């Protein structure tokens, strides 16, 4: 009786409340005893692996991807930001972030209340999470750590927009508040199960198109606007200092993304297998698309373009990865390759924003493209796993759009306010002299490259 779309909802499972939310609009509430989650060692083994893969995306994947794109005098500052966020977000997550995201107390299917938007503090300090705690068929410790790696990479993605000019202290304070006020609530709205705001609405976000990529992309755009352009931009060339690092990093992101998407099945099953296949197909398609577009438009195909296209495809397939088939993945790959190219090369200049490493152009645009097209290619007639009963493609796209718009507006307003507060208290930007010398020396007393 369950339509195929029920599979991804494994993600929503939370044994603690003895409630298993099954799929979108269909909700089954079972008594705790009946649920009796049994640990599945296959699922657990895959989720342990996925967790490590997603951590590998941030360090070293994203760090190198970004590190190569900045100038030599700032390479360490970017690596430092990613590494520091890995440490700090881990602490935020176990202290209160996980609870705000996945505490389901007070939630009831179909009822919209405060608990639909943000969790409480009953899981703060990982209270009650022990060796025997279960989340579906895997230990809750694994579930919480897997989700932690998402809470790490999302702020790290934002780093790309304000690279080469933000104060390190300001970044830390901004990110701690942002993770608490923006990331955890949006994560809760999408993934905490029955009674969650997006969940009850029927928004499809398998692995984080809205939660991770739109969220990070919009915060990145707001941050780039508020902190201002880098000195000399766009009159002076600011070319990447080491594209070798960037391509290595992009390749690591690609590999790690299988943990991100196929891991979001929270099981080693058919949904995970399909997520793996469509992830590979969409990424490859977008990489080839970007290459061709660039070849036609600029005369030569570039490796930076192809690597960027691959990431754009990975971003766009993220929300769709549990719902679409391989042909849908090709369509999403083509769309994201073209539209992210436009976002990073045309829209950015029209907006007049120095989104230094195209965090918005790739993750914001790619996330929106993926979220909307998920509503199209989920349809079984288009090779997907099938719409919820009684749902049309138009209806699903509308639901997706509402989810996107809510996230965009909430994230933009909240990010703006947090950045204003940080600017007024600490100041967002380094001094002009520090910017000239480079953040590596100015902020960290180190250099990435020594000649002797």
């Amino acid at each position, binding site marked *: 009786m369950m339509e195929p779309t029920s599979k991804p909802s494994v993600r929503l499972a939370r044994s603690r409340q003895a409630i298993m939310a099954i799929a979108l609009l269909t909700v089954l509430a079972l008594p705790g005893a009946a649920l009796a989650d049994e640990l599945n060692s296959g699922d657990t083994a895959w989720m342990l692996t996925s967790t490590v893969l997603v951590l590998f995306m941030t360090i070293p994947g994203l760090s190198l991807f970004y590190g190569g794109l900045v100038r030599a005098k700032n390479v360490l500052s970017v690596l430092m930001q990613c590494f520091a966020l890995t440490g700090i977000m881990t602490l935020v997550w176990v202290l209160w972030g996980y609870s705000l995201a996945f505490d389901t107390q007070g939630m009831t299917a179909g009822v919209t209340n405060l608990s639909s938007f943000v969790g409480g503090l009953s899981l703060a300090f990982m209270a009650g999470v022990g060796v025997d705690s279960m989340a579906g068929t895997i230990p809750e410790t694994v579930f919480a750590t897997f989700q932690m790696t998402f809470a790490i990479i999302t702020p790290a993605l934002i780093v790309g927009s304000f690279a080469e000019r933000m104060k390190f202290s300001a970044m830390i304070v901004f990110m701690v508040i942002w993770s608490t006020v923006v990331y955890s609530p949006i994560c809760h709205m999408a993934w905490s199960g029955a009674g969650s705001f997006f969940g009850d609405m029927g928004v499809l976000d398998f692995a984080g198109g809205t939660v991770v990529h739109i969220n990070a992309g919009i915060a990145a755009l707001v941050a780039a606007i508020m902190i201002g352009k880098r000195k000399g931009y766009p009159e002076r*060339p600011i070319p990447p200092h080491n594209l070798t690092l960037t391509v290595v990093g992009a390749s690591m992101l690609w590999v790690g993304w299988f943990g991100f998407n196929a891991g979001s099945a929270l099981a080693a099953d058919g949904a995970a297998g399909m997520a793996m296949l469509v992830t590979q197909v969409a990424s490859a398609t977008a990489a080839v698309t970007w290459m061709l577009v*660039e070849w036609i438009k*600029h005369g030569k195909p*570039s490796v930076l373009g192809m690597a960027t296209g691959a990431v754009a495809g990975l971003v766009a397939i993220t929300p769709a990865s549990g719902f679409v088939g391989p042909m849908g993945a090709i369509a999403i790959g083509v769309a994201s390759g073209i539209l992210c*190219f436009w976002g990073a*090369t045309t829209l950015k200049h029209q907006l007049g924003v120095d989104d230094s490493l*195209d965090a918005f152009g790739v993750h914001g645009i790619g996330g929106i493209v993926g979220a909307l097209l998920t509503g199209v290619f989920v349809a079984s007639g288009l090779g997907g796993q099938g719409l919820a009963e009684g749902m049309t493609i138009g209806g699903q796209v509308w639901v997706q759009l509402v989810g996107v718009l809510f996230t965009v507006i909430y994230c933009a307003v909240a990010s703006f306010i947090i950045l204003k507060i940080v600017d007024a208290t600490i100041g967002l930007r380094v001094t002009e002299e520090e910017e000239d010398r480079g953040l590596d020396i100015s902020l960290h007393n180190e250099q990435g490259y020594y000649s002797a």
Partner: protein
Amino acid sequence: MKLLTCIVRPNALDNVKEGLSALGLTGMTVSEVKGFGRQKGHREVYRGAEYNIDFTPKLKIEVVVSDSMVEQAISAVKEASNTGSIGDGKIFVLSVDEVVRIRTGETGDSAI
């Protein structure tokens, strides 16, 4: 004694080295440098942002020769790095007052 400062294309290095070695010259110093002359810069494109890079990569080869070898050395470098196109580079010839081999203290031609 003369110092030859040769600015040449990066891919001319092996030919220049072989040409000078054939004359019996035993040492040279090579640096990677950037610059421009009549050959203008080139275009680079990163995510659609086009940059005109004014400075073209070149090699600077520095070699000190005795007065009797100057003409032959210049000819060897010219022959090795001439493609006939703009951007082949230049050779600057400067007088050298003294050369000292640090290890032995030798000076003059025998220290080259």
